[in-house]
């Protein structure tokens, strides 16, 4: 049964598989040697659904239409053609073997789709080459790896077509009509005047060419960005389910912990390694990154590849688990400026077709810089000190926390006799309590609550900063001090439901306090306002004539998937709401997130000005906001553009409050 050809194939394929296998094993061991931990095996059903949808269904890839269709074609073609490749391998190994036994109808159907997809993939490769070499979108870097892959994918398809064409010419098999494209090619090649023997020999030659390229590909994959064909599936499976996520807490009680945050790649987890393995360098993350788009040194794409190459450079030490010898994660490529440039807007994560989580890495590196090395932009030190002594990032006394509502009918929790009768605790937040502009927002919101007969109270002087700025900047220790104090207070009053006008407080209370024993139903004020409108408790008049545009806050939108409530509020009041060119999950950050609110912006252009320009493009005379920090950033942007007198920034609570008649 075996002959020389099968023996030759066995040796070559064996060598190729062994080579690729060793490399893959090393990649696996490298990931496994990471010291950070990550559990991602819960909610199996949802994970399987997500994987099927996004791998087989190519859902996330198709977020971008044209390139998505090209990719999906290549991917589906790859699956179908791999069946054929398998058949070639088997028939070379054991002459005469074919998948015909599956039934003639099925087999000819299979061949027909394979033939079709061979041509489609070839066209998709041409399309891809056109995009890379002629269109050259800025976020796609021309790299040899990608061109090489395109070239060989093209060659693979050509070799299949020629293999089939010459085989048809020499043998005229019964299924020749099931290979319409190869058959036409065969006819086209008749001018060569080949005798059947030569034609069959050429057919076999191209079969070998195809098989050798496939094997070569197999050897090349583990060390190239094409590794995503193996890693992206698992990475999709192990993704964070749903949009909301909190940062992972550090257990400061654990006395064996000596390193807080990430100083070396190995301080991250296996999931982070799987992220780098999955990255296709498609550049979608970079295209939407507000830091990159305003000429900062941060590109989320480069961040991932820098981490990957750092891991590969340290391969020897990591495999030996000699962590001392692993070099630092911050180097001349991945500088601390890169790490400080991020606004935690998560545009990158939403855009990524393979569910890479960039922010987790950036924020764990910040933890090391801040807590272990005390290295951070110097202006942040005052912010930390304010939070340590007065539980607010601003230099204000805790005694003044409730001064904003001295003259308003707003109850404090310690004055309420039966807290269980309250509908909500109103979490004021530091901006609401201390920032003059934002105090007005809170005053408007409490007026709305009173009009709608919502029973609420505030913590007053007992409220402390949620700790969000400290946590995003990397000071997890300070964050936990504040978080545990707040949870203690909230639980003492048996608080069940919380409403807040600050998306940062909202996110922290909702997604992060659970880790410290604080489990509440938390809603954003725009959600409550939308509910009150819907249930008819308040009846706004749709009377606002001006053009008005809503700016999505990252922590409400991309972090918590809330895009509709603010728009419902707006539509109930404004006759002419308009969208900016970037909105919903594609919206652009104002520049304040990730603790950037508290840092100087010294590199590149200003993010807030860029976003303000987008707002101005709509011709709106009011920019609606649902976040105190967005409000500050856009107001500053308007000042820079000298539009502070022509365009207003208003919180949705103010807009709604204005429209309510007494």
């Amino acid at each position, binding site marked *: 049964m075996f002959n020389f050809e099968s023996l030759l194939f066995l040796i070559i394929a064996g060598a190729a598989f062994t080579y690729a296998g060793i490399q893959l094993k090393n990649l696996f061991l490298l990931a496994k040697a990471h010291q950070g931990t990550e559990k991602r095996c819960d909610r199996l059903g949802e994970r399987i659904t997500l994987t099927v949808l996004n791998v087989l269904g190519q859902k996330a890839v198709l977020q971008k239409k044209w390139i998505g269709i090209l990719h999906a074609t290549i991917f589906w073609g790859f699956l179908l053609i791999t069946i054929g490749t398998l058949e070639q391998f088997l028939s070379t190994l054991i002459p005469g073997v074919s998948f015909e036994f599956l039934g003639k109808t099925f087999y000819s159907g299979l061949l027909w789709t394979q033939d079709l997809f061979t041509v489609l993939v070839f066209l998709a490769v041409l399309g891809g080459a056109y995009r890379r070499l002629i269109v050259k979108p800025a976020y796609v870097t021309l790299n040899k790896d990608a061109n090489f892959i395109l070239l060989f994918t093209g060659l693979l398809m050509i070799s299949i077509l020629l293999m089939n064409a010459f085989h048809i010419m020499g043998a005229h098999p019964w299924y020749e009509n099931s290979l319409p494209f190869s058959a036409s090619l065969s006819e086209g090649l008749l001018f060569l005047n080949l005798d059947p023997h030569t034609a069959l020999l050429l057919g076999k030659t191209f079969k070998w060419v195809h098989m050798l390229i496939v094997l070569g590909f197999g050897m090349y994959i583990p060390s190239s960005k094409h590794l995503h064909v193996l890693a992206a599936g698992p990475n999709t499976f192990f993704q964070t389910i749903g949009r909301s996520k909190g940062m992972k807490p550090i257990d400061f009680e654990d006395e064996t912990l*000596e390193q807080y945050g990430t100083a070396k790649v190995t301080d991250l987890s296996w999931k982070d390694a799987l992220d780098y393995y999955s990255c296709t360098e498609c550049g979608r993350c970079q295209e939407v990154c507000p830091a990159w788009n305003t000429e900062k040194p941060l590109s989320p794409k480069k961040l991932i590849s820098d981490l990957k190459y750092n891991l590969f450079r340290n391969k020897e030490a990591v495999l030996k688990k000699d962590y001392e010898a692993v070099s630092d994660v911050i180097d001349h490529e991945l500088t601390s400026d890169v790490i400080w440039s991020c606004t935690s807007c998560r545009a990158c994560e939403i855009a990524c077709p393979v569910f890479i989580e960039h922010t987790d890495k950036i924020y764990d590196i910040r933890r090391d810089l801040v807590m272990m*090395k*005390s290295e951070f932009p110097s202006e942040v030190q005052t912010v930390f000190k304010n939070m340590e002594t007065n539980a607010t990032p601003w230099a204000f*006394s805790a005694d003044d926390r409730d001064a904003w509502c001295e003259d308003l009918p707003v109850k404090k929790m310690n004055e309420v006799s039966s807290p269980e009768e309250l509908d909500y605790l109103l979490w004021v937040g530091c901006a609401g309590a201390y920032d003059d502009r934002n105090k007005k927002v809170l005053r408007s919101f409490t007026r709305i609550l009173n009009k709608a007969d919502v029973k609420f109270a505030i913590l007053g002087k007992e409220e402390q900063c949620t700790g969000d700025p400290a946590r995003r900047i990397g000071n997890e220790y300070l964050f936990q001090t504040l978080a545990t104090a707040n949870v203690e207070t909230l639980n003492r009053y048996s608080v069940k439901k919380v409403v807040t006008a600050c998306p940062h407080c909202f996110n922290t209370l909702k997604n992060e306090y659970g880790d410290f024993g604080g489990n509440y139903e938390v809603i954003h004020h725009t959600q409550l306002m939308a509910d009150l409108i819907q249930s008819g408790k308040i009846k706004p008049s749709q009377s606002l004539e001006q053009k008005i545009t809503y700016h999505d806050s990252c922590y409400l939108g991309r972090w918590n998937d809330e895009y509709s409530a603010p728009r419902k509020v707006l539509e109930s009041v404004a006759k002419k709401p308009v969208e900016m060119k970037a909105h919903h999950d594609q919206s652009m950050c104002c520049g304040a997130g990730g603790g950037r609110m508290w840092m100087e912006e010294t590199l590149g252009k200003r993010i807030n000005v860029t976003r303000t320009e987008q707002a101005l493009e709509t011709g709106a005379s009011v920019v609606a906001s649902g976040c105190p920090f967005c409000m500050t950033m856009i107001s500053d942007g308007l000042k820079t553009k000298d539009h502070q007198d022509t365009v207003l920034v208003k919180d949705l609570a103010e807009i709604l409050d204005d429209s309510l008649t007494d």
Partner: protein
Amino acid sequence: MNIYVCIKQVPDTETKIKLNSDQTWIDTSGIKWIVSPYDEFAIEEGLKVKAQFPESKVTIVSAGPDRVVDAIRTGLAMGADTGLHIELPETADHFITAQAISKALQKEEKVDLLFCGKEAIDDGAAQTAQLIAAAMDIPALTVILEAQYTENSVQVKREVEGGTIEVLESSLPAVIAAQKGLNEPRYASLPNIMKAKKKEVKKVSLADLGMSESDQKVKLKNFELPAPKAAGRKLDGTPAEMAAELVKILHEEVKVI
């Protein structure tokens, strides 16, 4: 080198100062205490000298009630080696503080450098550094912006009124009182905060030093809060009218011109 840094714990700058019921002192309940900012420069400078002379030991000294141990721990978290707490009542004056510090230090290892802030931000008296130097009979270099150290001498730039800079040189030991700008105080790293909890803070009482509260020279009698700020007044009219009105007010009401 043996480096000592004398620090004072003061109410946070944002504190709303209230008086106690008999108006003899401030009401300390609910106050957030911090290390006086100028003293942070002093601590940082001590640590920088230690970085230059690695064999050095940095001791944080603070005189006051038990709460000042927290301030000492802040210094230890920044990287100082050990602490010395001299027990003094809340209302101790600068004289008794300086005396107690100088007596306590006589019992310690020889002093090479002693750092203070140029003043504490609570009473703003700027007394203690010089009084310690006098009690110890060593030079006092105050309001220092820049300093260079050798094993046995120091050269400093001192800020004089009007922005003039004096360059002084002194032998050691000496007292150096830090001005803002001398350095950028570091933020304690978490491992250092943890370590600081275990570092030694020695406690010394007045009696241990052969002193008593009656050594205090200044007794505080009565405190009064400043009158609340009057609301601002807006002048109307043409620029000429407003100017005339302003001159009238400054002359007749405020009597400054």
